[in-house]
């Protein structure tokens, strides 16, 4: 019993000793706040030419603050390596000759109050550019060889000068074939910087070759012979474009892809099979995608829709959705045109849905042409058909352009005229008549938003003799203005036009013919 008393006594002593008076001080000062003014949210500079000269004003909520400064810069959009902060200044005023490669960087300004040791970071986006990273690019050819013209736009969308045949000037020769499509990738993998990394690459596709160019220099990175692990036997490219999680290339009607969500060498893989029996197929040159959806193709051999997938060697056969006007498989049609209209993100599904239109011609009855609204739903598709009358202007059209979003219209070329057709009420309206002798070779809708460079144009390219004109029209409720806002002129036949700026990304424009 005595032992128990001793034990209990010892326990109580320990308990008492463990009590301590709470001396916590709740009279806390508010957190110090350092404020910097005079630091812009972004700067655009030319490497080896421009100085970053910034002299910000720095204040603190702490009286008598004494600051220490550090300026640093690091690379963005890096894959496969950790970006390193390079110190470029230790005084409040920065005067730094930009030497970084042309791409996106982040400027970091660290301010430390030496008295309190409190530090705060401020950042600013730095776009390092070259003369090639801003302007209108025109893809053109002379009937057998392709090139590009670059219209420089240093102060506004209206060009102040032109670099003619810029592709051949830089690369020492033209690209074989007729120009077809310009597409842009900001995460294309190459070793142009010395290590395998994301590269801003402009792709010019012709009917005989593809040139992947470093956007900063326009030097060719790869062509049709080096874009693949195993080059295809026939070089007949149809398109190169970005789909969800993958880059796609269609050559000679066969589909190839690069899975973009893992390390890759920038080379396209094996030809995708149509099905598990490797049934022969030949895709139409037209495709339907947004950058956040898998692309839809049309196999002209079987008259069937197929869906490309980022990985895997086999494409997916598209089946019919609940209500559809025409089967997605074996519908006995030939595709005349297909293009992108809209994309819709459904937050509850974390998924995007693309929507487009196509024009079909019946294989058995060529006088049967159908304008179809395409509503893909993952591996299913529903179509809403508008059977065209032979008297409709669009029936004999030769060139088409869907509006990217915007009004529910399709523009088309018939003869030397551009017409529009209302996709809701089928109303057709003359929009533009090319001057006598001019042949319309190209029509496309392009829109882009950037302070000072925002535009929403319907571009119409024409050819007269060996010269071209690209007229850029604004539209109002779908009707083109009576005269173009900008006109580009040069030599050759224009096939595509793209406005390029350091802010353009692979998600900026809809990928579509």
């Amino acid at each position, binding site marked *: 019993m005595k032992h128990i008393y001793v034990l209990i006594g010892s326990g109580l002593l320990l308990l008492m000793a463990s009590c301590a008076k709470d001396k916590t001080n709740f009279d806390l000062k508010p957190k110090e706040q350092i404020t910097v003014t005079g630091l812009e949210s972004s700067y655009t500079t030319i490497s080896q030419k421009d100085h970053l000269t910034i002299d910000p004003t720095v204040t603190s909520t702490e009286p008598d603050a004494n600051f220490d400064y550090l300026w640093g810069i690091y690379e963005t959009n890096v894959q496969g390596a950790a970006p390193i902060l390079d110190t470029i200044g230790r005084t409040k005023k920065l005067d730094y000759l930009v030497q970084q490669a042309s791409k996106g960087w982040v400027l970091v300004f660290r301010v430390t109050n030496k008295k309190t040791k409190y530090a705060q970071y401020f950042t600013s986006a730095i776009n390092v550019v070259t003369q090639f990273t801003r302007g209108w690019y025109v893809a053109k050819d002379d009937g057998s060889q392709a090139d590009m013209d670059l219209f420089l736009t240093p102060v506004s969308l209206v060009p102040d000068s032109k670099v003619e045949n810029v592709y051949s000037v830089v690369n020492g020769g033209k690209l074989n074939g007729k120009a077809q499509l310009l597409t842009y990738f900001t995460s294309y993998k190459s070793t142009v910087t010395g290590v395998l990394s994301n590269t801003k690459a402009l792709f010019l596709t012709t009917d005989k070759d593809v040139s992947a160019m470093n956007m900063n220099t326009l030097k060719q990175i790869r062509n049709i012979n080096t874009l693949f692990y195993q080059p295809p036997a026939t070089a007949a490219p149809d398109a190169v474009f970005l789909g969800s999680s993958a880059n796609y290339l269609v050559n000679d009607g066969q589909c190839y892809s690069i899975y973009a969500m893992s390390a890759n060498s920038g080379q396209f893989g094996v030809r995708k099979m149509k099905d*598990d029996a490797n049934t022969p197929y030949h895709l139409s040159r037209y495709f339907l995608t947004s950058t956040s959806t898998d692309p839809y193709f049309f196999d002209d051999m079987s008259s069937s829709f197929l869906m490309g997938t980022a990985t895997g*060697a086999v494409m997916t056969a598209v089946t019919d959705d609940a209500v559809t006007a025409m089967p997605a498989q074996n519908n006995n049609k030939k595709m005349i045109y297909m293009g992108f209209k809209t994309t819709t993100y459904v937050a509850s599904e974390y998924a995007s849905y693309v929507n487009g239109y196509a024009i079909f011609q019946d294989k058995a009855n060529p006088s049967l042409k159908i304008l179809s609204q395409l509503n893909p739903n993952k591996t299913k598709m529903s179509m809403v058909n508008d059977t065209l009358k032979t008297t409709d202007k669009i029936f004999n059209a030769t060139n088409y352009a869907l509006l990217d979003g915007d009004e529910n219209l399709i523009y088309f070329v018939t003869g030397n005229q551009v017409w529009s057709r209302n996709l809701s009420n089928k109303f057709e309206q003359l929009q533009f008549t090319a001057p006598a002798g001019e042949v319309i070779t190209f029509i496309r809708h392009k829109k882009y938003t950037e302070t000072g460079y925002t535009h929403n144009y319907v571009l119409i390219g024409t050819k007269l003799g060996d010269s071209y004109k690209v007229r850029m029209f604004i539209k109002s409720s779908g009707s083109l203005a009576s005269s173009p806002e900008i006109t580009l002129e040069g030599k050759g036949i224009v096939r595509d036009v793209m406005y390029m700026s350091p802010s353009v990304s692979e998600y900026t424009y809809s990928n579509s013919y």
Partner: protein
Amino acid sequence: MKTLKYVLIVIAVIAVASCKKDQYYLFNDTARIQFGPDATRIYTASYNLADTLKPFTFYYELPSVTEDTVFFDIYAIGGVSKTDRGFTLKQEQVPNVSNAVAGTHYVAFTDPRVSKFYTIKAGTVHTSVPVIVLRDPSLKTNTVLLKLNVVSDGNFQLGEKSNLWRKVQLTDRLSQPASWNASFSQYYFGKYSTVKHAFMIQATGQKWDESFISVTSADYALLQYYIGVVKTALIDYNKNNPGNPLRDESGELVVIP
């Protein structure tokens, strides 16, 4: 109550007595020798038992090639020495398998052609152990196993038990490379068979040997490309041989998942 007290005391004594320090070898212990992973992997615990078995085949070599060398990594423990220190290897006969025969399937460890390399040089603790394997005609139809052990000698005592041996699986037929492991089967090419292996070689023009698989496995995009090439070739083969699809040596259908 007294009994309970005794029981408690006995349990306490047993508990204390059961504590025993693990017998790790110390780095300042006597000189010991043991195999180990590649020198770049010695601090990666998951590689502690890597390279215990190295399959080797002469299948890919030209007929004029009659011998080749398989290398293992060996480490001295207990610090460096100012003088070279030889170590001793000995073959162990493994029951129920065809054991390699010295002079027929490999150059004996006592042969000066190789024994001169079985030395930890002064000032170092690591060396590569060459095992010269011989292309005996019997290997065209047979696979033999060479198990080699380090044995204690005047220079070295034995190291950790699990690292005292290595094995070479030797043949002149197509055999499963070590890098065609469980995950390579599960995620890429499926179950191994020599028929599938030979088909892959024929379809791609690549060796699909240890070195090729190791390099290709590190490049997902390239691996996907080859999977596509083999898959396409297999479908085409089966289409061109109706009713007689490609089957492996066990009669199972060859499948690329």
